[in-house]
């Protein structure tokens, strides 16, 4: 088992040694475009969330109102029937 681990260790080191090392660091004034976090998706997500939250809330309230009105009509009809 020990021999297997040692062999694996040597193989991994050999793979690392095979890669060429970075010979210099090059300065840039701006972050490359591929590294930059784009703003547009964040702005769009913020606006979309606000729209969705409002629509969802209005829908929930409208449904609640419809349900209460339905119950109210049914019950008032029932009460009217009972009255002499």
């Amino acid at each position, binding site marked *: 088992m020990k021999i297997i681990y040692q062999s694996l260790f040597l193989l991994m080191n050999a793979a690392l040694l095979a890669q060429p090392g970075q010979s210099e660091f090059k300065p840039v004034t701006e972050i490359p475009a591929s590294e930059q*976090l784009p*703003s*547009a998706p*964040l*702005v769009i*997500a*913020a*606006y979309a*969330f*606000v*729209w969705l*939250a*409002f629509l969802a*809330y*209005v829908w929930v*309230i*409208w449904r*609640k*109102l419809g349900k*209460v*009105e339905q*119950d*109210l009509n049914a*019950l*008032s009809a*029932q*009460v009217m029937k*009972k009255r002499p």
Partner: protein
Amino acid sequence: MRKAVVPLLAIAGLIFMTAPIIIVRAPYESTMGLVQKVFYFHMPPAMLMLVSAIFCGILSGVFLVKRRPVYDWMAYAAAELTVLYGAMAMVTGPLWARKAWGVWWVWDPRLTLSLLMWMVFVSYLLLRRYGGPGSEILAAGLALFGMATSPFVYLSVNIWRTIHPLTSVVPTLPVDFAFPLWYAFTGFLVLYIALMLLRMSVEQQRAMLDQLYLESEE
């Protein structure tokens, strides 16, 4: 009351549809660039969350003294809107912060206190939903506590060291930034009033339903 809701919703819808055009035409902020445009949909709900919390607290206090149901209906509606507007501020804020600060969230005094206040109002709603009879009185007490946190939320940026923009930013905004902001704010405010009226009419109808149940049982 409900007659006013549809026109108000239409006005708010119109403002919300035109606001992005005005916001796109607004200039970019020098250090934050495009992501600063989240501000126009972040500050209005955040400000209205605070106003709504104070409104809910005052109405709850009046309800505790006078015990008239109409104050309770209004306080309940205001608490729900505090949570709704608070959720908008809590979601849009991190989307802005991710780019501007490099992180989604920091345990900054403004953010932490806002979250705490929002959770107080979530507790209010949970208490109303599951608290059973008499929960409106307990919830009214909780709303007073929630209202008491709102000045701390507002002033936190001036009292403690924070990375959140200070309260002095909004009053000193150049016209190019201020116009889209107050335009969007008007939309949020009109929608707040419309939703408040709509939510109150639900509570009013529920009260009528309870009254009819009592009548039918007698």
